[in-house]
């Protein structure tokens, strides 16, 4: 294991008592708890983590945070995860990772981890726990408001964590918030999305940092959905670089990042440093590095008059080169020396100086982190003084505090944060009952000089190694080529060069790119504008977003009260909407065809039963219920007598069939309708919509009772015998209990509503009982029918039986373009009613055409089982494409009753073609079929009374 030659002897927020072993690119290293992968690598002296994607240049750790463009790694163990910035990976024991030039790699085995979500509401959400965020959260919490403070780091402090001395109040404020009953501090939680009406998304890393020690009972990541009355964004700022030759070598690092490595992680990122800056902040880095024993060779300050910070550095013995710029670096692969020249009015002058250095710190200014603000719909404004885009107006209830809006000094941030927090709480309806936290910290009396805005340092030869986007390898020369191609819009220039499109989404490069473009085009940065920031702020794993909604929880499975029986009896299931319905019940060794043939035979020749509980059921009550249903169904419902049942069809306003089912009249003012299984919710919605929005004056109410009734269809010529045995009070003869009537009686002692409805053409009953009696009823039927060979059947048999009778299934034999008339069901369309939904559409030119597609049956030659979906053509030889198609097969079965195969089809002018021969292309063959009317079995209807 390599030692940690760059670890400082003391300091840092790491646990030296907790050494952690890890491997990077095949080499074993050691770090400490509290390290990131990046800080541990730097401690070992590893700067370079990969080569660049396009040019293959060596690249090293550049930042200390989420904005990292270079040090993107592939985690190999404990479980492969692609593309994480080494600067955000908390070190754990057993971590195995490698540097990535371009593409990450997914695991091939399933991810064993769990992921989940939580939903939270608060009065004030504060994003970011740096000084401004802490002050804001404390101020808001002291008003009694419900506060959530979220920060992606393991501990509060934000940028303070990278400074030499963290004021006590930071930790105190953290503890105060932890203790407050109405406040919640979310650590390791990145707020990544800001949506409408203050809906924010955050990803909490719950066990990622524990590696293989992560307890499996805990979710690995959690997505927080937070609805906040008020939001305070205290998201800080990202430092940016300057474009100069060779600004991409390992050993070049942002100044504040180097400071963070020294102070937070007790790592010296180099032995001898040059600092290149355009403002004051980098002097803190220079001084902190010097204090940690790094030899600071010089501070190169682009400003001719750098002010007090420079004086302080000079007093500490650091050479300050005012009005200078770094013009290049050399060293392979890492920086070994830095070239510097005087800079006057954007021109280099004077002799070049070379400094030997293994570290070059750069500070080209600060970009407020305005991503979330922009996602919220906020406008950004270019602040020429800051040389950055800052938040401007936003429609949502959001405030921005501290560095995120360009306030960079600590006292200023504290005051700004406290003010934002207090005002947010007030706007949420709270007033400060307790004194607000102190908002002043010791300010410095130092004379600070404004920052210079330097985007590009010219030369020495060309701009081919002046990088603006390190991850996409985009240089000033590339941008110049793009402007040379005629492009003017930032969006085009970015797309041409791919700048800003990489994993870091341009966090450090975006504004620099705009600055360079402005300079190339000779316009102001403000004129160019910026690109819109899109969620997520940092990448979020698919698995976290999917959460628990996977596997059986992906979509609820609905099962009937009889499901266990079906399972126990070997049913194969079909998904119908969300339901699992028995499809068929194979016996030992039976395939589907054999099982269905047996089930069909039982229904046609003896007795069979099926679980029809999934049919939608809607209870409609009220004095105007009949009138209401007359408007919805194509046929007349209000004339139905109590005790009787009618089949009905509903159309959409465009005249196309929407649903069908039966309507039973329970009382003068009460109806019960059934709908198709898949459409139950849609039909209820549809009814309520009309009732509430168009006819609120109608006194009618609808209630879904689908799950309140279990329904068993008892079918077959011997069904009456079975029923009679179990329902002694019921007069079952066809006169007393006619077709399309219903009766209330006890079946096997269970209160039941029995309907004489048939979807097979056979004598049949539908027995409805409360669902907790379903199994008792079913088993009683099974017992009573056993001597007659009663057979359970599934949806497939149901489909065959109904097709033999030419009954269409909505959604299978219709597709949203079919009218009742097309189905040959003109009889269900009332001519008498003044109106019903869809009626007017039946009068349109196209719906009246005689050559519309109509439902017919087909008898294929040679007993071929035609594929459902197959098309119909006219001749026995295929024309050249496009071949005119006459229709398609909607249903196709092998019929036991008919002793042959048959199909239903929608065929152009189908009814006129009865008797005609058409052809069905199947593979390379053309199968001849004869068109017939749709009812093939018992056309006289002789069997329905048994």
């Amino acid at each position, binding site marked *: 294991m390599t030692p940690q030659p760059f670890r400082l002897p003391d300091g840092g927020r790491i646990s030296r008592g907790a050494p952690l072993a890890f491997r990077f*690119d095949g080499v074993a290293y050691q770090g400490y708890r509290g390290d990131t992968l990046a800080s541990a690598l730097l401690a070992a002296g590893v700067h370079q983590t*990969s080569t660049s*994607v396009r040019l293959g240049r060596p690249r090293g750790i550049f930042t200390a945070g989420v904005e990292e463009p270079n040090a993107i790694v592939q985690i190999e163990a404990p*479980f*492969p995860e*692609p*593309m994480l910035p080494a600067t955000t990976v908390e070190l754990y024991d057993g971590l195995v990772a490698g*540097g990535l*030039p*371009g*593409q*990450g790699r*997914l*695991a*091939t085995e*399933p*991810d064993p*981890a769990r992921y989940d979500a939580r939903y939270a509401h608060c009065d004030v959400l504060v994003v970011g726990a740096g000084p401004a965020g802490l002050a804001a959260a404390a101020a808001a919490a002291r008003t009694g408001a419900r506060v959530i403070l979220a920060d992606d780091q393991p501990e509060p402090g934000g940028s303070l964590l990278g400074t030499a001395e963290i004021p006590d109040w930071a930790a105190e404020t953290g503890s105060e918030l932890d203790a407050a009953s109405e406040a919640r501090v979310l650590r390791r939680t990145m707020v990544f*999305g800001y949506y409408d009406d203050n809906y924010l*998304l955050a990803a909490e890393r719950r066990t990622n940092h524990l590696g293989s020690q992560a307890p499996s009972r805990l979710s690995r990541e959690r997505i927080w959905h937070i609805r906040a009355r008020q939001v305070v964004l205290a998201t800080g700022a990202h430092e940016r670089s300057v474009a100069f030759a060779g600004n991409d070598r390992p050993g070049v690092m942002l100044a504040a990042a180097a400071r963070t490595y020294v102070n937070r992680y007790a790592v010296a990122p180099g032995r001898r440093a040059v600092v290149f800056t355009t403002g004051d902040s980098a002097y803190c880095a220079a001084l902190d590095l010097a204090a940690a024993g790094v030899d600071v060779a010089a501070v190169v300050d682009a400003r001719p008059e750098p002010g007090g910070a420079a004086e302080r550095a000079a007093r500490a013995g650091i050479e300050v080169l005012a009005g200078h710029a770094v013009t290049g670096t050399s060293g392979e692969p890492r920086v070994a020396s830095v070239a510097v020249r005087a800079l006057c009015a954007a021109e280099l002058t004077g002799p070049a100086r070379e400094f030997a250095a293994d570290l070059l710190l750069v500070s080209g200014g600060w970009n407020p982190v305005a991503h979330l603000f922009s996602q919220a*719909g906020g406008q950004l404004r270019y602040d020429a003084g800051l040389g950055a885009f800052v938040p401007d107006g936003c429609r949502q209830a959001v405030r921005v505090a501290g560095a995120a809006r360009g306030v960079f000094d600590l006292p200023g941030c504290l005051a700004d944060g406290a003010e934002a927090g207090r005002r947010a709480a007030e706007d949420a309806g709270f007033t400060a009952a307790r004194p607000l936290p102190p908002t002043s910290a010791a300010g410095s009396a130092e004379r600070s000089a404004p920052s210079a805005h330097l985007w590009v340092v010219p030369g020495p030869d060309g701009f081919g190694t002046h990088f603006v986007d390190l991850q996409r390898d985009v240089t000033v020369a590339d941008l110049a*080529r793009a402007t*040379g*191609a*005629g492009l003017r*819009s930032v*969006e*085009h220039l970015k*797309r041409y060069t*791919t700048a800003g499109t990489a*994993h870091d989404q341009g966090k450090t490069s975006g504004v620099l790119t705009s600055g360079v473009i402005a300079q190339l085009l000779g316009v102001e940065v403000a004129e160019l504008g910026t690109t819109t920031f*899109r*969620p*997520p702020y940092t990448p979020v794993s*698919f*698995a976290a*977003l*999917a959460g628990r909604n*996977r596997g*059986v929880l*992906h*979509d609820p499975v609905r099962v009937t009260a009889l499901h266990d029986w079906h399972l126990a009896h070997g049913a194969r299931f079909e*998904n*119908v909407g969300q339901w699992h319905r028995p499809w068929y019940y194979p016996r030992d060794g039976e395939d589907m065809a054999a099982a269905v043939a047996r089930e069909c035979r039982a229904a046609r020749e003896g007795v069979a039963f099926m679980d029809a509980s999934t049919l939608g059921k809607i209870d409609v009550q009220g004095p105007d219920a009949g009138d209401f249903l007359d408007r919805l169904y194509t046929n007349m419902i209000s004339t139905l007598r109590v005790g009787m049942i009618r089949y009905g069809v509903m159309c959409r306003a465009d005249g196309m069939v929407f649903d069908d089912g039966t309507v039973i009249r329970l009382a003068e003012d009460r109806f019960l309708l059934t709908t198709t299984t898949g459409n139950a919710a849609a039909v209820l919605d549809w009814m309520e919509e009309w009732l509430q929005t168009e006819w609120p004056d109608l006194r009618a109410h609808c209630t879904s009772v689908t799950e309140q009734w279990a329904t068993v269809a008892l079918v077959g010529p011997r069904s009456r015998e079975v029923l009679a045995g179990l329902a002694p009070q019921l007069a079952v003869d066809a006169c007393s209990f006619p077709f399309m009537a219903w009766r209330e009686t006890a079946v096997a002692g269970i209160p039941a509503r029995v309907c004489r409805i048939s979807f097979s053409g056979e004598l049949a009953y539908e027995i409805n009982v409360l669902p907790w009696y379903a199994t008792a009823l079913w088993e009683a039927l099974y017992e009573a029918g056993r001597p007659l060979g009663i057979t359970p059947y599934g949806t497939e048999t149901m489909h065959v039986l109904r097709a033999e009778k030419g009954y269409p299934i909505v959604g299978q034999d219709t*597709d*949203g373009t079919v009218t009742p008339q097309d189905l040959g069901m003109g009889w269900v369309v009332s001519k008498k009613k003044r109106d019903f939904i869809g009626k007017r*559409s039946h009068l*349109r*030119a*196209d719906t009246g055409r005689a050559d519309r597609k109509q439902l017919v049956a087909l008898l294929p030659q040679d007993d071929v089982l035609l*594929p*459902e*979906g*197959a*098309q119909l053509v006219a001749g026995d030889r295929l024309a050249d*494409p*496009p071949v005119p*198609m006459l229709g*398609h097969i909607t249903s196709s079965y092998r019929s036991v009753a008919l002793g042959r195969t048959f199909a239903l089809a929608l065929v152009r002018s189908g009814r006129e073609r009865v008797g005609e021969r058409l052809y069905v*292309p199947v593979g390379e063959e053309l199968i001849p079929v004869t068109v017939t009317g749709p009812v093939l079995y018992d056309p006289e209807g002789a069997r329905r009374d048994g």
Partner: protein
Amino acid sequence: MSPRTPGAQLPEHPDWLWRTPDPRRSYDVVIVGGGGHGLATAHYLARNHGITDVAVLERGWLAGGNMARNTTIIRSNYLWDESAGIYEHALRLWEGLEEELDYPLLFSQRGVLNLAHSLQDVRDSVRRVEANRLNAVDAQWLDPRQVKEVCPIVNISPDARYPVMGATYQPRAGIAKHDHVAWGLARSADAAGIDLIQNCEVTGIDVTGGRVTGVRTSLGPIAAGKVALCAAGHSSVLAAMAGFELPLQSHPLQALVSELLEPVHPTVVMSNAVHVYVSQAHKGELVMGAGVDAYTAYTQRGAFHVIERQMAAALELFPVFARAHVLRTWGGIVDVTPDASPITGLAPVDQLYLNCGWGTGGFKATPGVGWVYAHTIAHDDPHPLARPFCLDRFTTGALVDEHGAAAVAH
């Protein structure tokens, strides 16, 4: 250190693209909207009809609307003859477009799978395949095992909540790189002398005596012999300027990309039932589309629960995606018609032309639309392939209902 990944780079754009001209006072043809369709129309007006006194007016940056936001799926396996006609025409043009434009479009015919998850899906799919074959559109029905052969990472376990029961497969379908397509068309139009005018929003349409005479714009009035609308999500707003309405609703439609990943996904997979569409683009990023948001909006952004649902569905189909990351999401504004088919042809105002309603699926049509629409404009008469897509169909009822094939299909 891993070796550099080949293929993680795109071919370079050319050294010259287009001019940035000031608008002239008058043009023979003004095209409103510089998206893919507007640019393709300009290209074919010049190329097929020699009409070059043309301006394309774009309110933002060229091809910055849906053209820049779509998931680039190209296929022609639509159900109805009318649709197959126009989309297959487009696909044939795609097959020669790189050469025609002399621009690398990264048109990759890697095939598209449309998955079936229920017995009814299977019937609908077979129906579409059979119709496609008779329309000379390459189409196949694959069983789950064959699906797995085409795309080994698809989960075909019968225990999945909605198991894969098969798929339609169009081998000639695929993806292209949208910017390259737009820019290739733009460069060609510009080279023909057509003015591409950006940051020029049309704010009014002048109609005199039932005939269009010009447009008002943020850069001043521009007279025009003919005005052709190509404003996608904003079509209703433009129609209102000319005094008529369109049967369109503009909805947000979102998409997302992951980080760059080593190749895992060789084709394009679409699943209408669970609303996910995914391919792995040229640099290695997974590109995914979701369903539309339920309500209308011009916000160019959608709601997050749509993305979450899409991720859950994606992991059902592709468990290996678990630890991929969403890098970026975005939204476009899609103009949806009642029958999920486009409207292209004549407008109720003379010399004004309509092309809209391509909804969630107009990228694939780009060259086809340009060809057909340029013809319509040049002859003041709808191209035969466009005729079924006239506005009048909503009155007669002769809809081209592609909900089955296009519901939220790209």
